[in-house]
């Protein structure tokens, strides 16, 4: 924890991922080496444009978990906008960039708003349909030249010099690639980007910490679309003509192929994939027709097989194989100003009141008119045999599931119809029976998701690095909670590399980051060793002393009996008994439920 106080940026996940960037800068000198054939420069230009589109797919597909079969068509929106403006209306190509991006963003917002709420494959399927629709629009609308497209687009111009030469385009394109790589890296390392990455741990977990999952998915979708639009603008002015072909379904698949081959979750992977696919494509187009003795798109056979083979044998893509991914140290600014903490309610005031709560699944009554309450600074245990409805009750309280009847009141307000993220905002945090950590994030990054609602920085300030002070405070808080649960030393390990019991404790640290009034823990002691259980009990007692209210589902009776103030016993969805641990221990109905009638 006492790492050197640098500006928090050094050693963060991203920058060390980007070691190829200096190499790229050197590569910028490539075109001026003697004897580099212009053919190779053209190929590198296409690689750069494709890389920008694939980096968008890294965010959307590799990290956001949404697949788009329409990236090339979105790229067409940017290309056609600038083509129409600079050719038909003779405006400066530079004006085409903001205009192209604006059109792309609007298009992506409409398409995204329609589809991002759906689960992954519906989105993917939707992209096939609307990209087909857009493609046929390009091919049939008069003002974009139908199938002939728009020829004679003016080139970019800097200080009166027209960038016509392939070498000049090379510089512009690869500056674009580097800017996009940096921006994407910054995005993934900021609060909004963590929310995108958190989607991999399941939308339920993300929503339980206040992430607006639909909006986060939309953000990833629009960001990827903007990169495609940018690539389209570059393409239009490099190619100096546009027609529908490069914006159809097959080019879209090719971009996806680049992302998958390179490694869909890594920015350098997108560059690698773009280079491999572009160069192989060019070679195949040269060789295969000679082999088959006729002209045609034979390379699609190779690419189709390549795509399937990659998914079967290297689903992570090439990049992770080239470079073993290992955890990187994230230095924490432990002197960052602490986050504002919530005022805890006075000891004993009612925090949670559950009245006649009910949840039915068809004919099955999972939770049958359960009523109980918990006051500030109290630990209440919810126990009962498997299938008693304890976890369902948790889901009803936290808004993951909607009650069929009854009410949940939190500090006097009815919260039974509210969505999970609104309930999180009120100060209710939870852990999960089946651990929901993000496997692709380190422990401390996972914990920082818990502090999502305590920061405000958006994606744009993240990309521009204006959020560093706030982000350092969020990470300092995450580190503080990790120290509090006693797992500071594993901060940089990949979250799912820990033992299951430790992962449960990490979930508690994440929940504490929310600064909760009410903490719901689903089997926190499962998988812990004896002394670890004792440490956990100590931690929960300290939290209680600070005024936190804790509701606990647990099967370990020693743990529960020694810790809780009050117990609620459930069996087959109904409340069997309620009282102090001593009362419950001797309650005949409870003994019967646990041990059978004859015991």
């Amino acid at each position, binding site marked *: 924890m006492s790492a050197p106080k640098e500006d928090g940026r050094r050693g963060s996940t991203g920058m060390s991922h980007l070691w190829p960037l200096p190499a790229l800068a050197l590569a910028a000198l490539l075109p001026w080496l003697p004897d580099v054939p212009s053919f190779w420069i053209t190929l590198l230009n296409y690689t750069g444009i494709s890389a920008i589109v694939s980096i968008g797919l890294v965010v959307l597909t590799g990290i956001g*978990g949404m697949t788009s079969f329409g990236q090339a068509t979105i790229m067409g929106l940017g290309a056609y906008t600038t083509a129409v403006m600079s050719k038909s209306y003779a405006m400066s190509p530079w004006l085409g960039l903001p205009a192209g991006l604006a059109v792309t963003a609007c298009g992506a917002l409409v398409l995204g708003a329609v589809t991002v709420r759906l689960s992954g494959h519906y989105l993917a399927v939707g992209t096939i349909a609307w990209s087909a629709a857009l493609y*046929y629009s390009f091919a049939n609308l008069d003002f974009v030249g139908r199938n002939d497209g728009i020829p004679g687009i003016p080139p970019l111009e800097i200080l009166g010099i027209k960038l016509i030469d392939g070498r000049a385009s090379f510089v512009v394109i690869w500056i674009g690639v580097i800017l996009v790589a940096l921006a994407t890296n910054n995005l993934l390392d900021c609060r909004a980007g963590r929310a995108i990455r958190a989607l991999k741990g399941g939308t339920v977990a993300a929503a339980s910490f206040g992430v607006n999952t639909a909006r986060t998915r939309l953000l990833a979708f629009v960001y990827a679309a903007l990169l495609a639009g940018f690539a389209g603008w570059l393409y239009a002015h490099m190619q100096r003509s546009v027609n529908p072909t490069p914006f159809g379904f097959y080019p879209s698949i090719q971009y996806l192929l680049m992302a998958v081959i390179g490694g869909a979750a890594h920015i350098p992977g997108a560059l690698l994939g773009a280079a491999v696919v572009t160069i192989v494509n060019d070679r195949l187009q040269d060789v295969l027709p000679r082999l088959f003795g006729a002209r045609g798109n034979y390379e699609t056979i190779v690419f189709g097989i390549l795509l399937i083979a990659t998914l079967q044998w290297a689903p992570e893509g090439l990049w992770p194989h080239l470079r073993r991914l290992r955890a990187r140290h994230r230095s924490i600014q432990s002197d960052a100003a602490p986050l504002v903490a919530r005022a805890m309610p006075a000891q004993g005031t009612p925090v949670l009141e559950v009245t006649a709560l009910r949840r039915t699944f068809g004919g099955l009554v999972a939770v049958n008119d359960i009523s109980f309450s918990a006051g500030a600074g109290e630990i209440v245990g919810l126990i009962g045999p498997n299938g008693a409805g304890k976890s369902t009750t948790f889901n009803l309280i936290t808004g993951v599931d909607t009650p069929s009847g009854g009410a949940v009141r939190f500090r006097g307000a009815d919260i039974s119809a509210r969505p999970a993220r609104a309930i999180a905002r009120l100060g209710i945090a939870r852990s999960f029976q089946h651990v929901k950590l993000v496997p692709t994030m380190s422990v401390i990054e996972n914990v920082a998701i818990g502090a999502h609602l305590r920061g405000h920085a958006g994606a744009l300030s993240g990309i521009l690095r204006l959020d560093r002070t706030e982000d350092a405070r969020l990470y300092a808080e995450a580190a503080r909670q990790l120290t509090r649960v006693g797992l500071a030393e594993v901060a940089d390990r990949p979250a799912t590399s820990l033992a299951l019991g430790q992962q449960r404790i990490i979930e508690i640290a994440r929940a504490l980051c929310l600064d909760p009034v009410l903490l719901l823990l689903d089997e926190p002691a499962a998988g812990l060793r004896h002394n670890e259980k004792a440490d956990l009990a100590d931690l929960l007692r300290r939290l209680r002393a600070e005024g936190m209210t804790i509701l606990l589902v647990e099967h370990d009776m020693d743990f529960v009996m020694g810790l809780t103030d009050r117990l609620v016993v459930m069996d087959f969805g109904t409340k069997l008994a309620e009282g102090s641990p001593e009362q419950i221990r001797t309650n005949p109905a409870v003994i019967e439920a646990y041990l059978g009638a004859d015991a």
Partner: protein
Amino acid sequence: MDTSILLILVQDGIVNGAIYALLALSLVLVFAVTRVIYVAQGEFVAYGALTYAALDGGHVPGAVWLLCVLGLAACVAGFWQARGRRDLATTVRLLGETIVLPAGIAGATWVLAPMKPGIVVDVLLALAIVTPMSPYLYRIAFQPLANASVLVLLITAVGLHLALVGCGLVFFGPEGFRAPAFSDAMLTAGPLMIPGQAIWIVAITFVLMLSLYGFFENALTGKALRATAVNRLGARLVGIPTESAGMVAFALAGFMGALSGVLIVPLATVYYDSGFTIGLRGFTAAIIGGLGSYPGAVIAAVLVGVAESFSSFWASAFKEVIVFTAIIPVLLWRSLRHRAVEDEE
């Protein structure tokens, strides 16, 4: 627009819709059993159509070679997947399915094709050549990914589509073909002229739907498929081999795709890459129906067919745009109905 044009458009739409319904039904079936969104199914339409056309011309269709190549690849894949736990019975079965069967079909084609045996034999031969490719592809491409997410399976299916279109070009060439109709009869009903082929299409679709219904309700294999669709793990626990369930589903999809091609090639010229846009319509219908409902898919398919014939009347250039945009309001409606995205399985 007068009533007779309206009726003609509706008739056109229903005939096309019947084809799309066949495709949509098999897409729903394959998705339910294997979770694969079978984008490549459209290629079976083109393959079926072009194979039938080649046989009609008295040639040995290129698809025979593809069948043998895929059979061999499926054989290798089968041995690889079952390495270390292979016994004699399964080995014999695998060899029979992947080597003997295509060899037999190829031999029969070799003998029969130059004899120009007539429409019925041509059709049956075309179906026999194209149908087995689908389960072979399942074994090669999807079986190793049986536990992957829906999304990975979808990308795989798209990769398969890409490869199959390229193979179509290699084995069938770039020219388009037509083939003779099952019947040249022409019925007149008021202002309507109903070609015999249209009646064939609707009748075959109808019979197939009924027999599928019977298959799922009564036959043991059908019930096993339904059980697999509801719960793969549960089905395996009660001893249903989910792998062969997937194989059966893919075979049915291949058969229905090839049949659609055979039915459609008398009405429209089919090229090696025509399958995608035809398949995409079946696909749109399946999605509109929710990927889970057979009647929903059929109704949606007829709607897509009718929408297509009306839009080609009013704005033929934007036919495709209108048909594919139709999916967006449906998705919007679905997205408003779902409160939140559920976790991926």
